[in-house]
Every structure is written in C-alpha cells, then in structure tokens.
C-alpha cells in the first residue's frame, strides 16, 4: 500500500487533489481511498487530505500516520505544523515552491531521505500561467507522477479531464504536464 498525505490551506484544493489522485490510481485498475481530515475547513486554515493506493481492497480507515509521500501545497506550513511527522525513511517530499531546498531550510530533511526524494516545483506559478489562478493541486499531481512513479501522467491527465469543464481541465492538464517536465529536468540535472 502506498499512502499519500497532502498538506495545504483551505481554498488551495487540498481535498480535490487527494480525490484526483485516487481517480488516477483507479483508472489504472488500482484500489484507492481518498478522504479529507474532517476539520471545520475555512479559507486559509491548514487542511490535510489523504490518499491510499493499493492493488487490493483498502479496509483501513485510520488517518495516514506514516505516509510514503507528502505533498505540501504551501511551504509556510513547515513553520506552523510538523508537516513531516511520520514520513517513512524511504519516503518522498514534494513541495510547492519556486525556492530551493536550502532557502526552505529543508536540507536536513532531504539528507535523511534517499537522494532525489525531496523536490520543489513552482506549482502555483505553473497554475497561474496555465490556469490563470494559483491553484497548485493539479500541477503537483503531475510532479508527483514523475517523482514517485506510482501513477502515470496519462492517468493524472485523465482524472483532471473527468473532473472539470473543458477549459479549466485543459489549463490544469497543461500545468500538470509542465510540472512533470520540470521534475524530469531537475532529475536529469541531479
């Protein structure tokens, strides 16, 4: 089972991100379970959502306490809460930012994880460019597909395509593909 926890703020599409990821996994024939953190969500407040992916039926209903991957939609959360809590030693950390790991004070975290498992991607900027609004979730899923290899970019694109109207879907698909390429470029450079 592969478990993903998404951290962000109310209004960033944290819950939608987990749902889209579950649909992408479902489209590949996998079992997937997405659920929100059940808080009283409000715009700007820290929000958490979860997604489990497995080859067999998922029965577990506890929150994800030991994620295989973390997607962080807002890097200012690192100062507010213990975002990395429970992250597995071979886990992945994907951060929405145009800054470097050094700037974000994430070098210590990166050292504890396998090389190349901690990555930043300017998802908000890519969304602003392709969608016209700084909603990073679709772009982050594109980057997630490249970083982890757990799902295919094609499945992410299909999930986005099924969830939104044509114009909004097209923008988000472009943002996801651009983020995928950005990670591919970063991996090649490293």
């Amino acid at each position: 089972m592969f478990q993903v926890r998404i951290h962000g703020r109310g209004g960033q599409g944290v819950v939608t991100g987990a749902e889209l990821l579950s649909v992408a996994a479902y489209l590949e024939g996998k079992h997937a379970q997405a659920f929100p953190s059940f808080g009283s969500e409000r715009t700007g407040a820290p929000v958490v959502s979860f997604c489990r992916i497995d080859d067999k039926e998922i029965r577990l209903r506890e929150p994800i306490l030991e994620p295989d991957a973390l997607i962080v939609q807002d890097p200012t959360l690192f100062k507010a809460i213990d975002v990395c809590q429970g992250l597995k030693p071979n886990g992945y950390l994907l951060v929405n930012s145009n800054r470097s790991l050094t700037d974000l004070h994430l070098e210590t975290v990166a050292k504890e994880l396998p090389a190349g498992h901690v990555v930043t991607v300017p998802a908000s900027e890519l969304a602003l460019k392709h969608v016209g609004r700084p909603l990073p979730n679709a772009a982050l899923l594109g980057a997630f597909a490249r970083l982890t290899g757990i799902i295919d970019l094609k499945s992410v694109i299909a999930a986005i395509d099924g969830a939104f109207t044509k114009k909004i879907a097209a923008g988000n698909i472009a943002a996801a593909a651009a983020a995928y390429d950005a990670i591919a470029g970063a991996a090649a450079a490293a």
Partner: protein
Amino acid sequence: MLKQIEGSRAMAEAIGLCRPEVICAYPITPQTHIVEGLGEMVRTGDIKNCEFINVESEFAALSVAIGASAAGARAYTATASQGLLYMAEAVYNASGLGLPIVMTLGNRAIGAPINIWNDHSDAMAMCDSGWMQLFAETNQEAADLHIQAFRLAEELSMPVMVCVDGFILTHAVERVDIPKQVDVDAYLPPYEPVQVLDPRDPVSIGAMVGPEAFTEVRYLQHYKQTLALRLIPEFAAAFKSRFGRDSGGLLRSYRAEDAELIVVAMGSVNGTIKDTIDEMRADGLSIGLVTLVSFRPFPTAALREKLVRARNVVVIEKSLAVGMGGPLANNVDLALRNVEAAPQVHSVIAGLGGRPITRASLHRVLRQALEQPWEGSHFLDLNEKIIAKELHYVRKVRRSGPTAENLLRRLGQAADHAVV
C-alpha cells in the same frame, strides 16, 4: 458500473435508482452531500416522478416524509446528530404509524460540547424508537443497504434507518459498483402501501389509542421487527444472487470460527479491525471479528451462535450511555444471557466525537484483552493526564468553570487564560 466516487454521491445514486417519489431533507453536516446530490438529480430529471421538497427544519423534513408516505409515496429523508434529535417526535410517529420511510443517518456525535465529527451517539439515541437500524461498513455497503432498506421497509411497512459513519464514509472517495436500473427494478418492486390516505376511499390514520389496545399496537411493532430477523438475511441473499456481492444481512464473521477472542463492532471501523486481526493472527493470536449490520432488530440468537464458543468477547463501540457504559456491549450481554459458561464480555468505548481509532491502539487494547481482561468500560486512548488535572482542579475550586473549555485550555487550544 464501477466508479471512483464520493460515498455521499454513491448513496445518492443508489437512492435515485430506488425511484423515490418524495425526498425532503434539511441540510446538516455530514449528511449534506447526499441530499445535495439527490436535489441535483431531481432537478436534472435523472430521478423522474419525484418531488424534492425544501423544508425549514428536520422536524418538518420527517413530518413531510410521514405525510408523503401516508399518501402512498415512496418517501426518503436524511439527517444526522442534532437533526435527528430535533425530529425525534416524528421519528417515533413514523414507526408508530407503520410508515415505510427510509432515512440515511450520517452518524455524528451529539452536543454539548458541539462536535461535527463521527460517532454513533445519534443512532443510539433513537435505537428504541421502532425504526430498524442497519450499519454500513463500506461505501459499497452503504449504497447497497439503501436498496435493501426500501424493500425491507415496504415489506413490513416499517421505517428503516441506514447508518453511515459521517465523514469516514460520507466524505471518502473510493470504488463503488453502482447497480443498473434494470437490476434495482427487478429487486425492488413498486411500493404497494398497506394504508393510504386517499380522498376516494377515506380512512383515518393516527387515532388515539387507550390502554385497551396500546400494548397490542406496540407488540405488533415488536413482532414486525422479529419478522425482520428472518427477512433481512433473505433480502441480503436475494441481493447477492442479483448483484453478485455480500451486502447487509444481520451480521458477518471474520476469522471468528475458532477464535478465543471475538471482537464485536458496527460500521466503518470494522475494516481497521480486520487489518489488525490479520496482523495479530500472523503473530499466532487466536482472534476474530463479528460485524453487526442490524442493530435493530437486534439479532440475539444469531449473535449468540457466533459468540458462544469464545472465551472472551470485546465490544468496540462509538457510543457511550452516560452512567451505564457501552450500549452495544449491554446488548451483546443480552445475547449471552442465561448461557452456561458464557464468554466474558469486555467493553471498549472508542472513536467518540471523531477521535481516530488506529491499528496501534487496537493492538494495545486487544492484547490487553487476551492477557489481562478488564471489568467495566475501557475508554480507548483516554488522556488520563488532563482528566486527573481537571478532577484535582474542580475539587479545589468551587467556581471551576465550564469543563469543555477547561480541557481545551489544558491542551493549549484555547488560551484566553490559564487554569492552574
């Protein structure tokens, strides 16, 4: 058709396939997405010959459902928590009048203190109201139970509550097989009411009944629920032969046949318990599970048959009858009443107000049950430290203030002023 879908949406689609004729509901978290979905499907014509009635309260929602059902319509509503309490008088009227309404309960805690999260307090508050109560383990079962609920309700002319864990199921997106209309039509015949308010053939429904017949009316209500003990497995079997999957029934067991310790639970927590049991079985421990689907009628004989060979029974439930303990544990005790050398029953109160029930905590409490079984209620993951501090404080200070706010302050979640 397989879909990756939110639980609430899956339930709305399944309810739509049952061809309801009147839907009335007042929104309350976490039930809202279900009736939003239904409202949309009525508007777009995906549900035909159906009136969606906006009402001003939960009391009105169920009262309108009662009127619609008495007029011969297939009626549906949904609520949760305080909403169920607000409609309480109508809840008893629906069952007392024998009207086959189906209602989804998105299980949620009851205030005060106000809490929007999941537990089974609402279902337990109305468990003796004469409604049948079926608890779903997964969203697949939540969808399926609604189809079976209409058939059960209409066969007996008695209302059914489908209990679905709020947020944990209602807001989870997972794989659900949405049945085909043709199969639902074959499974669920058109509603043929046993009593109708019809101006062409006037009758009176809801007469005052004195001591001369009140006991008999109640007895017949109770008798119908005993009939349901036979019908619920029958309808689950018929469901399986048409739709190809096990959903519903009175109860199910998991690795329990030879188990020394058997866990009893209701609702979505059963999945987490199954994973825990697999891990404990791998460690060589003799443990199994009985999942109760039907809480009303309570399947006393079927449950006794499942439990009687165990040494210990642990009842894990998301409810507390204050001053008594676990209501489900109490009912399980009843199933073992007068049984010679009956297993010991141990009660665990867990998941109140949405506290997650984790595998780690289940491992801890179930190992304790094997090694050092306890008497009375065990409160899973109870923060004994803040309780000790609070008890000490209220002994010392007469005007100690409101309990909930004191505890939040101790947790650092409401720091307007410190308590000592």
